[in-house]
């Protein structure tokens, strides 16, 4: 003997799934969107794989190796390499304020001869770099969790007051 349909079960809706035509496509779209975000993550859209940017002139070459995409809380390193093609007497590295905005600067190695502010930018005096030699400066950071958005993180290389090179870049911090 057959049993009646259980209470609150509508055979049209719960057996034949009438009226649920959109639920599977919506689910597939959501799965596709989630997968797309994961693929973007693999493609370094959300950081923090470093990029190398270079600027070159007859006197020097400047290389910045640092990630452009970051996330709140992560630790990362920025490496600045100065290649002297001629003797540089008074090397100064000038960083735009975006480098320090809502970020912990944990370490600067080697310690610069002097550091301070020049018209709102951060400057690091690195001293003399003989012709053909390389100077590497390592900065270690941690991003504050509330630091979200995009800001300029330019780098300029000076010899005394003479601007030799500049690299224009931005950093994007994801929550």
């Amino acid at each position, binding site marked *: *003997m*057959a*049993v009646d*349909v*259980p209470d*609150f*079960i509508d*055979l049209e*809706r*719960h*057996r034949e*799934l009438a009226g*649920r035509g959109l639920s*599977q496509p919506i*689910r597939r779209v*959501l*799965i596709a969107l*989630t997968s797309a975000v994961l693929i973007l993550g693999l493609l370094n859209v959300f950081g923090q794989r470093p990029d190398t940017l270079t600027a070159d002139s007859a006197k020097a070459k400047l290389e910045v190796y640092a990630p452009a995409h970051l996330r*709140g*809380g992560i630790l990362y390193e920025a490496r600045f390499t100065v290649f002297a093609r001629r003797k540089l007497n008074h090397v100064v590295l000038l960083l735009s304020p975006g480098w320090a905005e809502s970020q912990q600067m944990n370490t600067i190695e080697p310690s610069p001869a002097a550091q301070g502010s020049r018209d709102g930018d951060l400057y690091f005096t690195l001293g003399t770099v003989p012709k053909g030699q390389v100077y590497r400066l390592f900065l270690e950071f941690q991003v504050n*969790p*509330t630091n979200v958005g995009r800001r300029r993180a330019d780098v300029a290389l000076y010899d005394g007051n003479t601007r030799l090179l500049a690299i224009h870049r931005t950093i994007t911090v994801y*929550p």
Partner: protein
Amino acid sequence: MDIVFRGIFVFVFLYVLMRMIGRRELSSLEPFDLILLIVLGDAVQQGLTQDDYSLTGAFLAIGTIAVLQLVVSYANFRFPKLRPVLDGEPIVVVQDGKPIEKNLRRERVTIEDLAAAARKQSIAKIDDVQWAVMETSGAISFIKKQDS
């Protein structure tokens, strides 16, 4: 403020994720699922409070999630039309001893899974089942034939 926003985002994301992955995954809690649950909890916590160890931060995070859960629960109760979206709907998977393949496939449930669920309710044969309904929680309810 940040923690409240993070709490809202995490809640909405987890809610959509749970609806998206389907009820089959929700119903089973095998050893691996248990480990996954702990890992998931840890990952969520990191994103929610990050380096905030304060009692205030914990209060805000837990409070946000609790209030949102209450809101969803109230909406579910107050507005029946929202229930299929928020909670899903039951699906009939067996009628008169015959599995409904289309519905089983939709929920990624095999005949073996169905038989195992029946055995848990002391039902040896699917033939003996009049109705089997996969509930919104992912559990399968069985109603035996009256003459079996």
